[in-house]
């Protein structure tokens, strides 16, 4: 690329304007590191340019240019980059899409929002609320982008109630620069008035882009399903002493199919959700709270008319009691935070990363029956490496959060091993080893899958499936310009 760098710069400038392109190191450094790369100690080269397009047409032009000059492209939607998914592993162009931040439509009738990648859950929620609607977040923080989240995964903290076709249709710039609209949006002319059905026109192409991490193209617009706000919406909280009955209760309740949202966590996680980063640093406050918290907790989101919510609550109480769970209550302020967390996309969710902000997440999507076991395994491995809580210096109690998928048939499990990110590489070694051990034992034995395609994990996939994934990649991106080189690439 170096040979014709100036030519490319000129062309890119002509597309996005001088102000929205930079090839200066200070502008590009922020795009080559995130928590993941830091912990893994992986060096990611500087890209050649950071480019901020404003329109789909500009994105198209850039992609065409990339094919012409064969440079890689790494798009990022709003750029909440924690796990190394959008780093420019092979240089080239970082496409920062945060200028594409239009909420094109919030349709009250179809209860959908048409958004660009730079729109965040928070903003979408705010605008939706104005029309009596709400978002159905995937579970990321409020400042993440629905488009970006869908590129990662479709897993949600929301129960089966809302899992249908959340990403309805989308408009993507393919690696060849053409625009592809999926679902009923694919109609040449009429599609513009009806992007509200996911499955028109044969194969479900919306699904192809979900979880693709940008490998198959750049989503420039997406129709996201919203939900109406029920007359009464309420979260109820139950505490358990043991994990196994807690998970059993969660499964039993989820099978009744009335909860709007559901999640389980251990007290270590709950404390982090509740306490702001500063308060949790105070050992006294933390201990006090932990003493009041049940060891494990289930949060259920209920919604409906007053009578309905009352009924659901009663049934939930009865069901949970069968497994020894009890409702619990904390101070109003604390409950307020937990309530926000239960609704997703809140600041409380950010608290779980704080204040250490070094977290080695053991993430898996697996049957709920394995959760207690792998929780024990993580605990044991953490003990083996004698990891310490960076706040208190006490032996580390890892954080556990369990989010059911579709009535608990499987769950999304996240276990956070907190560490102090200011430690140097040598000091981080035990944490790294611990994480590797966890993965080796859990992925291998339980078939736990990450939520994102990862080269290591792809080794565990059926070769025929990998072939389909990579074959599809070759087909739509023959020059391999999208996302090459990283752990998530499909080249």
């Amino acid at each position, binding site marked *: 690329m170096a040979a014709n760098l100036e030519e490319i710069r000129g062309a890119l400038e002509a597309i996005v304007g001088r102000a929205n392109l930079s090839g200066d190191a200070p502008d590009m450094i922020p795009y080559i590191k995130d928590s993941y790369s830091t912990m893994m100690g992986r060096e990611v080269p500087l890209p050649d340019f950071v480019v901020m397009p404003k329109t789909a047409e500009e994105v198209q032009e850039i992609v065409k240019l990339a094919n012409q000059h064969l440079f890689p492209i790494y798009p990022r939607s709003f750029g909440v980059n924690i796990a190394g998914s959008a780093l420019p592993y092979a240089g080239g162009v970082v496409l920062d899409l945060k200028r594409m931040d239009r909420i094109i439509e919030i349709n009250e009738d179809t209860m959908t929002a048409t958004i660009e990648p730079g729109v965040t859950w928070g903003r979408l929620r705010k605008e939706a609320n104005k029309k009596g609607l709400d978002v159905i977040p995937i579970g990321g923080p409020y400042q993440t982008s629905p488009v970006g989240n869908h590129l990662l995964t479709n897993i949600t903290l929301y129960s089966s109630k809302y899992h249908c076709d959340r990403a309805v249709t989308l408009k993507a710039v393919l690696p060849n620069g053409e625009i592809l609209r999926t679902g009923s949006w694919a109609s040449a002319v009429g599609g513009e008035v009806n992007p*509200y059905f996911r499955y028109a026109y044969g194969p479900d192409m919306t*699904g192809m882009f979900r979880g693709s991490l940008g490998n198959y193209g750049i989503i420039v617009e997406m129709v996201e399903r919203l939900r109406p706000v029920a007359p009464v919406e309420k979260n109820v909280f139950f505490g358990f002493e043991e994990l196994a009955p807690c998970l059993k209760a969660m499964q039993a309740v989820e099978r009744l199919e009335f909860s709007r949202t559901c999640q389980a966590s251990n007290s270590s996680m709950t404390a982090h959700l509740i306490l702001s980063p500063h308060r949790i640093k105070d050992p006294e406050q933390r201990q006090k709270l932990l003493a009041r918290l049940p060891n494990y907790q289930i949060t259920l989101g209920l919604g409906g008319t007053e009578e309905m919510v009352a009924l659901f609550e009663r049934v939930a109480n009865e069901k949970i009691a069968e497994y020894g769970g009890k409702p619990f209550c904390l101070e109003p302020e604390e409950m307020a935070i937990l309530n926000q967390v239960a609704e997703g996309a809140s600041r409380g969710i950010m608290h779980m990363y704080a204040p250490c902000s070094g977290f080695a997440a053991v993430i898996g999507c697996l049957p709920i029956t394995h959760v207690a076991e792998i929780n024990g395994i993580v605990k044991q491995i953490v003990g083996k490496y004698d990891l310490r809580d960076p706040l208190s210096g006490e032996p580390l109690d890892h954080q556990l959060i369990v989010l059911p998928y579709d009535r608990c*048939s499987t769950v999304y499990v996240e276990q956070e091993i907190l560490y102090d990110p200011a430690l140097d590489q040598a000091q981080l070694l035990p944490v790294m080893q611990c994480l590797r051990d966890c993965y080796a034992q859990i992925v291998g034995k*339980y078939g736990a899958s990450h939520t994102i395609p990862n080269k290591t994990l792809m080794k*565990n996939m059926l070769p025929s499936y990998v072939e389909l994934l990579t074959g599809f990649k070759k087909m739509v991106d023959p020059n391999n310009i999208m996302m090459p080189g990283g752990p998530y690439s499909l080249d």
Partner: protein
Amino acid sequence: MPEAVPQTHELYEEIRAVVGAEHVTVEEFARRAYTRAPFYAVGGGGRGKIPGIVVRPGTTEEVAAVVKLANRTKTPIVPKGGGGSVSTFPPLYVGDQSNILVDTHRLNRILDIDTTYMTVTAQSGVILSQLAEEVSKHGFHTYTVDVPIHMDTVGGVLSGFLGGGEPSDMATSGTMNNYLLGLKVVLPTGDIVQTGGGPGTNIHQPRFLHREAGSSDMTGMFVGDGGSFGIKTEATFSIHPYPKVFMLGITDMGSRENMWDAFRELAATDPYPYTRLLGFHQQDGPWYFVHVIRAHTPEEGELKKNILEKICHKHGGQPATVGREILQIANMFSARRLGQQALPMGSTMTYFGEALIPMPQSLEYLDDINALLDETVGDLDIYKRIDFVVPYLRATTITGILLYFGKGTTRDEASQRLHEKALGGMERLFTEKYGGWTETHQGTSLAHSASVWAPSYKNFMRTIKKALDPNDIMMPGLWRI
């Protein structure tokens, strides 16, 4: 006039070696029997192409072997399930007279029902009602298409219906695709691929619990593909605890305005007080709602019923006093069987303009297709026409006219006129005004859909098709790309 059709097939011997003599035939009468689908004449003109050979493989591996043979000679393949498609079956249009019709009838085993992970894995030739029955024995239910549950196979519905078909509870459940966890597919090259679940789950446990857990959702690509991306041989679905309470009701909503106001309010109510909702009326008659409520407890059912009734009542709804005819119409939409609404002798039933329409435009669309109907086939002997509108989740509706031709209109006549006049009008409506597409069913919808595809979409499909099917043997020409 008798059509000259070949009586032998160049791959007969080899296919016979794969599946055994009793599972392959080149008999003309047997081949012709596969060109029949419900209301066959109405959808698009006659019975169409006759396959050159019919094969009933018994295993995925046999399917793969047949597909590989077909690749060698570049012979078109048409997979077929139960043949319950109501708007003609795609093989009528695709391929040529050497077509290998792969009948999945023998792939009819339910392989696994797992109540812990709540999944069922079945071969693609399993009839949906069989699936439902077996699953219900374990206290669970599946979201399978309702009409015609007794004829359609898992593979046929997943391939032929947009979104893999609409379960009876479509108003709240979405399509079957939402409950599909993974597929085993014989690709057009003869390679076998297992989708779903992604990393780990494929190898370490025989369950496909997350479609997107490992990467892109490669499962969805095969849903609604009309069979052109491969032959499905196994599918895994999630199953659901059976809601014990089932309540059905009919409400007389009076005027169209009343119906629509209530319809909109119902669609915006959270949680849904119903699992199925249907608005319909006949000629100048009142609009009726048919609803189904499902719940896990009687109280939950009662509460939902109260909410639903309150909303209907608020907009002028009255408990309906309905005769047999209305019940029959209501049944037509909820019937688990296709034509159970008692056809008059010699009449022919079809859907006219059934389409997915954004909710706000549903009634406008209804007016448009009624006008189109008047204009194009209105002078034929029409015995009955029923307008209907059904919600799909909260965004779109399935709106259309249920049309019965009387004795004075023969099938051929109806077919010809629909084909010549009405279809064009419909295409215009969708390209110019409504987007989306007519019909959720396989057959005409797939055969015509490419006509309104955006060029880039067409390109994309062509690219995928070319890469997956270099010899273009699987349902060639289905999308006219």
